[in-house]
């Protein structure tokens, strides 16, 4: 965060105060006090709107659908889902990879963009990190319940037990356990550490006793001492440095779940980079999907400016192109490699029973996002919102295609089969979307969704001229 003093307030658009230029990271005219009041008032003083209650009710109902689905699954077993041999992985792993991927943008924004001194990340990192946490929570549900006996899931962890057995460390599924649990832990730490100074602000500004008590406990007695800030900044920077290789490793390990297997369509070396790019692609799409309505509803256009939206659109364009390269190489190697099974797999993907999904995925992820080359699209909020939804759908389809079309017709035609999703497949998936939104609604209501102290560093007065 030493970077944030170095934002360009010399920008003629900002200095001239002629309204919002598309290059501002914060609207002109803000002070330490106004930034603090504007963000903390959402939590502390503004009345909770009817819209919030309606949204929370809807999301909460869907979360209850998740509870029902999982309860029913626990009673009946995973036979209530449509996956069965040969398609042993279907919606569950599709949704797992999709949710984990969405989480990646949060870490990218909070860690990598911090190290790259991109001060525009400041206003979006808090809720992008929250999004990461909630997405990882949703992701974790799927493998947990796909075990069929979630109450025995701790068997995945290495611990001395009376059975005398230990995990098999050569399996990518065990790597996944370590990668995802580390990711969840580090994301939670990163998020909480970032929140501490803001929780102190809420403690000091809360009018209610309960608010002062709860925020006070969570703030850990933070008092803004220069000594504390110094170590805090060091810790935050180190955490960012640690989280950067972590985020790359997590989706790499997730891709190993497939790439280590010998199934045609999975066994390829392009998977790790292409999965990581895909994760960032879908994650940025999700940040846009959330940021655009939030800034409109809470009037945060001063803090989440067009520049933020444009930058995110550019990241989407780049990662989208990497993903497109991945699709191309997959198809090219299937043909050029001369392996009959690989060749059949890609041909079956493009023309077989799931072909409509494949072409829908290509349309959503490769063709439509090319409109982002045009500045007019990148600055059109409604268009960006639509596009972010399209990419979310496309990235879900990508995982579905990779998993299901590779499994349903592999080596022996006698072992071929088709997968069809059941009601419970859909209800579990929709249920996790409900859980995700429920957590987000609670988050925007009870915690500052934009990092207040980091926004203060963007205010012009924060710049200290070196005297003496």
């Amino acid at each position, binding site marked *: 965060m*030493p970077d944030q003093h170095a934002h360009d307030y010399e920008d003629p658009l900002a200095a001239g105060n002629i309204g919002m230029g598309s290059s501002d990271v914060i609207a002109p005219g803000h002070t330490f006090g106004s930034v603090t009041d504007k963000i903390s008032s959402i939590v502390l003083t503004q009345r909770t709107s009817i819209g919030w209650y309606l949204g929370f009710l809807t999301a909460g109902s869907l979360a209850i659908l998740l509870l029902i689905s999982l309860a029913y699954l626990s009673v009946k077993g995973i036979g209530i889902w449509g996956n069965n041999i040969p398609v042993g992985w279907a919606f569950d792993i599709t949704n797992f990879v999709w949710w984990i991927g969405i989480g990646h943008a949060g870490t990218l924004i909070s860690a990598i963009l911090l190290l790259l001194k991109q001060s525009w990340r400041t206003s979006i990192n808090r809720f992008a990190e929250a999004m990461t946490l909630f997405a990882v929570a949703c992701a974790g549900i799927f493998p947990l319940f796909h075990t069929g006996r979630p109450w025995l899931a701790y068997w995945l962890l290495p611990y001395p037990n009376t059975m005398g057995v230990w995990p098999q460390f050569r399996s990518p599924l065990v790597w996944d356990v370590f990668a995802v649990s*580390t990711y969840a832990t580090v994301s939670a730490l990163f998020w909480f550490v970032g929140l501490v100074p803001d929780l102190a602000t809420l403690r*000091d500004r809360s009018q209610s006793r309960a608010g002062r008590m709860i925020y006070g406990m969570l703030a850990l007695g933070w*008092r803004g*001492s220069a000594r504390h800030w110094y170590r805090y900044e*060091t810790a935050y920077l*180190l955490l960012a440095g640690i989280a950067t290789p972590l985020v790359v490793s997590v989706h790499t390990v997730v891709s*190993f779940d497939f790439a280590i297997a010998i199934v045609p369509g999975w066994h390829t070396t392009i998977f790790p980079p292409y999965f990581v790019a895909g994760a960032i692609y879908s994650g940025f799409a999700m940040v846009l999907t959330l940021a655009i309505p939030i800034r409109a509803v809470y009037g945060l256009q001063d803090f989440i400016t067009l520049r933020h939206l444009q930058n995110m659109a550019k990241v989407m364009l780049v990662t989208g192109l990497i993903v497109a390269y991945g699709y191309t190489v997959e198809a090219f190697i299937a043909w050029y490699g001369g392996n009959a099974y690989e060749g059949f797999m890609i041909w079956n993907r493009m023309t077989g029973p799931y072909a409509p999904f494949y072409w829908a995925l290509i349309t959503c992820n490769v063709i439509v996002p090319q409109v982002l080359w045009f500045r007019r699209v990148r600055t059109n909020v409604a268009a960006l919102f639509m596009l972010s939804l399209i990419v979310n759908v496309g990235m879900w389809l990508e995982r579905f295609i990779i998993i299901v079309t590779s499994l349903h017709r592999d080596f022996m035609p006698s072992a071929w089969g088709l997968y069809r999703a059941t009601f419970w497949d859909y209800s579990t998936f929709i249920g996790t979307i409900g859980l995700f939104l429920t957590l987000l609604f609670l988050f925007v209501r009870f915690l500052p969704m934009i990092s207040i102290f980091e926004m203060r560093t963007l205010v012009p007065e*924060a710049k*200290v001229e070196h005297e003496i």
Partner: protein
Amino acid sequence: MATSRHQPVYGLMAEFEDPNQLVAAAHRAREAGYRRMDAYSPLPIEELHEAIGFHDTKLPLIVLIGGLVGCLSGYLLQFWVSTMAYPLNVGGKPLHSWPAFIPVTFECTILGAALAAVLGMLALNGLPQPYHPVFNVARFALASRNRFFLCIEARDKKFELAETRRFLEALEPREVTVVAD
């Protein structure tokens, strides 16, 4: 702000309206010979820790140690499990198939380093700390909004209530307050 002679005093606190004043004041206090002081601000100010003469490089070392402990324990766990506790022949690979142990070792390294960074930072800062004398000053609530405070502590050798108050007032703060202990 009259405080009786018998009430213990933690220090004297000056309130400023902008970070430049605070940094300048901290420099002046150090030049005047004060050592035991702290500055409080609602945002991190790079120059401030130097101004109050604070240096601490322990944290990066703690994080390095945390990472190394995570790395070694992750690798040794897999080594011990795979070759001694529960040797399994998987695809004819050697029992000590180290390339397959790298992902988990890596994740354990990250976990150890991250936990060390957060817990180390909190421990060195002495947090959580529910009570601190500076909170006795009512206006200190603004330290988390838009005000900047410099507190010279009573345990400083040079501290003398009237003298130090005169010194702080010369720095043109918004006001100077006695911090009760």
